[in-house]
């Protein structure tokens, strides 16, 4: 890991392209969708948290779900994975309808998720955490569990697989430690490693970078790219624009429960609707002046806004040839 201020240039792995069919608009159909969602609505009291007309997640690619806070990203995640029940709507995974399916069955179908607040089981060891992630261990049945003869062989095989994955994530030396003794970033890695034990088809990561030491960010990014290389589909929620730009093949933008834009990272970042979504809370500032379309003066409170816009611009490599912002 480099200590210098200049970020290490990423060795870019090739991005997936040609994922969509037709013009890019919110809800555009995909060539090979793994998830197709229709009319998903969820309200809490009077507040509409999620209102998605149509969205398709492409298979074998890394899709990022972004949006300002309160946009409904995690709620949408919870709905898709069966951790919450929608008011209405339907969606399919690999062609199978998932609406109303409880979360554990969704997980068994090959759709595995992590949580925003890491759920590494702290009172179990790292190795035990991994073993729980495995599918189809006969000993997990109460009657077979009584007699080790039924599950010993499977247990050894599972342990081998677990150690192999742990080695890849550089956690193998910690296999006998309680998960509670790991650092925050290590627990994130453990959660991701554990998710791989069941050979999932779709890995859904809820803010994988949140609270992670920047030194570990690179490692996490590489692991996520590895998932794609191994043929899995990845859907992740994030706020970190640099990460999104670097590894996402496709970006879906949510705001106030709706999907306002989707597409490859470069096009999405320049979308006016996206910019408005992020800046929408600043009602009293002339957006025209802020975005540089109009010349004018800005009140002092617009400074943080300027910073946000500059960051967006820099991250997307937007055209800096316009009149510099005052």
């Amino acid at each position, binding site marked *: 890991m480099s200590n210098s201020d200049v970020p290490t240039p990423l060795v870019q792995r090739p991005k997936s392209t040609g994922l969509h069919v037709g013009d890019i608009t919110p809800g555009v159909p995909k060539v090979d969708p793994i998830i197709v969602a229709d009319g998903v609505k969820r309200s809490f009291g009077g507040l509409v948290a999620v209102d998605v007309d149509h969205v398709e997640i492409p298979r074998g690619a890394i899709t990022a779900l972004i949006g300002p806070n309160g946009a409904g990203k995690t709620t949408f995640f919870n709905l898709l994975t069966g951790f919450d*029940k*929608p*008011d*209405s*709507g339907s969606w399919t995974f690999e062609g199978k309808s998932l*609406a*109303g*399916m*409880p979360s554990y069955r969704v997980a068994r179908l090959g759709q595995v998720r992590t949580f925003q607040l890491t759920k590494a089981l702290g009172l179990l060891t790292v190795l035990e955490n991994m073993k729980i992630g495995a599918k189809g261990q006969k000993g997990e049945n109460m009657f077979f569990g009584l007699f080790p003869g039924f599950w010993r062989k499977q247990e050894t095989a599972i342990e081998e697989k677990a150690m192999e994955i742990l080695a890849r994530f550089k956690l193998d030396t910690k296999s006998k430690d309680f998960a509670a003794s790991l650092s925050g970033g290590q627990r994130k890695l453990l959660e991701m490693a554990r998710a791989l034990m069941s050979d999932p088809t779709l890995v859904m990561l809820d803010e994988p970078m949140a609270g992670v030491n920047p030194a570990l960010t690179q490692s996490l990014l590489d692991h996520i790219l590895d998932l794609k290389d191994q043929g899995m589909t990845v859907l992740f929620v994030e706020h970190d624009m640099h990460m999104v730009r670097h590894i996402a093949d496709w970006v879906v933008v949510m705001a106030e429960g709706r999907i306002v834009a989707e597409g490859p990272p470069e096009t999405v970042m320049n979308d006016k609707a996206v910019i408005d979504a992020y800046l929408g809370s600043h009602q009293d500032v002339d957006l025209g002046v802020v975005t540089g379309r109009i010349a004018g003066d800005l009140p002092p409170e617009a400074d943080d806004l300027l910073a946000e816009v500059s960051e967006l611009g820099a991250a997307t490599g937007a055209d800096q040839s316009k009149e510099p912002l005052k």
Partner: protein
Amino acid sequence: MITAEQRQSRRRRGGALVAFGLAFAAALTLFPSAAMADEVGIEENDFRISGNVKLNSEALADVLITVEGNGYDAEVETDDEGRWRVGVPEKGEYTVTLDESTLPEGIAVVDETGADSTPNVKEVEIGPSGSTVMNFFIGRGERNTTSFVDQLVERLVNGLNFGLMLGLAAIGLSLVFGTTGLSNFAHAEMVTFGAVMALAFSGIGLPIWLAIPIAVILSAGFGFAMDAGLWRPLRRKGVGVVQLMIVSIGLSLALRYVFQFFIGGGTEQLPGSDAPDIKLFGSVSLSVTDMVSMAISVVVIGAFAWWLLNTRIGKATRAVSDNPSLAAASGIDVDHVVRIVWIVASALAGLSGILWAYFRPGIRWDMGAQILLLVFAAVTLGGLGTAFGALVGSLVVGILVEVSSLWIPADLKYVGALVVLIVILLFRPQGILGKRERIG
């Protein structure tokens, strides 16, 4: 649109409830056709009430007799020789009722003098001999049936009295839960404490109107001591809510037996508990004590409501009960509010204990524990953490307990309230007035 799982889960829950209800109903309806005993509670209890039901010299079998008093209920049927015996736990007054619907046609309990309008209901007292006999005069005549409406009204009034008394205890429990997250099992003992203190001070000769306020003040002090000496240090230590609950269980056990240590296993009475009933209207008759009880409950609850709504501390209490971290962030001194809550809750519990002592009637070492579950039911029904919810829940529970005895056997009357508690927690765990939060 309801998703498949919602439908399925509702069906599952509904199915489970139907199964539970069927099993319960089956249990109740199938078995009572089995013969009931002509002797009840004889081995268990030391004192006896007995009698013989005969028409002239002809024995009447399977006549239903009910014995109630001192917090004890029993039912018995006469045997082939018309005899019945009931064991009762303590000396004192009991009400013996002969259910005339179990007499043969055209037969009723008659009162030769014509003065007693309900000759099938009689008061008896067990004296030093430890047993007593109660025989009814049976003859041909009109049944003295109280109309259903009259009975219902009487139960409603009783239920109201009981509910108001439960409310005093429930409000405190609910606020303690709301502000600290603690399900305080020792609340039962705070109820008993008030009654015991009133007994102690009236026992040393103080008039009852002086003993009661002293008892309430001491209860408040007790609450202060518990928060200062036990609960606040534990909260500071960061002890988890489940651990605290188990601590309160241990405290409840210890206090209960401390009470037994001092007042023994029997029942004591407060002065004025044997005031005679005054007929009011219909078949409703209350004693002066009952009426004063209800009046005190209403006044105290009213004052408390005013305090909660209008004073700064009252509003702060509601804020902390609603959302402790937000209240703290707004500058409210949560520790101070919690301290006040404990003082108020204990005072109310103590007063409730005194009123319970008059209602049962009688003071026992475990009298608080007897109503703890009812208080939990009331608090949960109304909404854990809300004071007004606790009051509403208490009234419902009190009335439910009293009115349900019209349909289910008297010794099962608490079961109704408990079943309500379970059902509420299953379908609407936030209660009537509570706010929705993730319970699962």
